[in-house]
C-alpha cells in the first residue's frame, strides 16, 4: 500500500493468485477506512485489474474525471 503526502490517493497491489481472497475485502476495507473521513472529503475507490493495459486505464480514468466534472459543476 502506498499513499501520497496529503493522503488524497492510495494505491494497493494484489497479485492474481490472491484475488479470490483479496478482491471482496479490498474495496470494503477501503470503504471503512474512507468512512472515517468527513463526508465531503470522501471520494471514489478504484480497483484496476489491468495495470499494463493503457486503454483500460484510460477508460477508467475517463469515467473518474467525468465524475469529478459532475461533482464540480452540478448546475451545468
Amino acid at each position, binding site marked *: 500500500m502506498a499513499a501520497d503526502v496529503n493522503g488524497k490517493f492510495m494505491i494497493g497491489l494484489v497479485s492474481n493468485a490472491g484475488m479470490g481472497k483479496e478482491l*471482496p475485502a479490498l474495496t470494503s476495507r477501503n470503504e471503512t477506512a474512507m468512512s472515517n473521513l468527513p463526508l465531503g472529503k470522501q471520494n471514489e475507490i478504484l480497483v484496476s485489474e489491468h495495470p499494463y493495459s493503457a486503454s483500460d486505464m484510460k477508460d477508467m480514468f475517463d469515467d473518474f474525471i467525468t*465524475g469529478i466534472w459532475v461533482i464540480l459543476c452540478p448546475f451545468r
Partner: protein
Amino acid sequence: MGHFMSISLALYGIEGVTPRLALKFAKHYFACLHLSITGAAYLKYLNDGDHVGDHDLVMVEIAELEEKINNGIATAFRVYNEAAGAIPWSVSFGYTTNDFGGFYHFDGQCSGDLIELKGMISFIKDVCADIAVPYGMIYKCEKVSKAFSYAAGNNMVTMCSYENSSAFKKEVPGRFQGRERYKEHLLRMVYPVNVISNKHLEIDVGGVVLKDWIGESVGRGKLEALTSSTWLWYVEADQLEDVNKSLGEAGILISWKKMEGRKRF
C-alpha cells in the same frame, strides 16, 4: 454487442434476511447452477486493524461457515466455486449486510451464458417465493470481477456507455447514506431481467404508469408476475438501449447519463 462471459445477479432490500436464511439461499443458488461450493469466507473485524472498522476475509470450509453462522459468529459471507485459471472465481454468491462498509444485498456471478441465465432466473423465482425482494436484476458482463463490483455500485463499473458510473453508489446506504429510491420509486437502469415491484410499475413515465408503458408498444419487453407484489421484467438485448434511453430521458433511471455534449478526455 460483445460476447458475454458471465451472468450475474444483484438483489437489494434484503434487510429481513438472516445469515442463516442467506446461507440456505446460497446453497440453493449453487444447486440452481448445478455446481458445487468449493470455498467459503466470512468477514471479521480486526482488533489490531489499520483503522476503525478494519476487517478481513476469513477463509473456511462450507461446514465451518455454517457452524459459525449458526453460532452467530459469522454474518456477511461469500461462497464460491474456483475453477482452474478463473480469477477471482468462476462462480460466487455473496451476502452483504450493513456492516463491513457494505449494505444489505445479495450478489451472484457465474461464468457462462444461456444455461446459467436460466439457472439464475430459477433461483430468483425461488427466493421471491420465500421473501419479498423489492428490487434486483440479472445482467451480463464480460468479467466476473467486474460484475462483482457492479452489484454494490463499486469501482465505477458500468454496463453501458450511457450509464453514470458513480450515481448508484450515492443511492445506496453505507458511506453516502443514499436514499435507496430504487426500492420503490426509480430503477438503477434497465437490464435483461429486472426484479421489480407493484410500486415500480406505478412509476410515472410521461403521463403513463410504467406497467402500461411496457405493454403499450412492442420492443419494451414482457412482464411475468412472480407473486402478488413482485414481477420479472424481461427485456431483449437488442431492445435495451432504446428502453434505457426512453426511461432515462423520462427521469426514472438513477444511473442514466446523457451522451450528447459530454466531452471524453
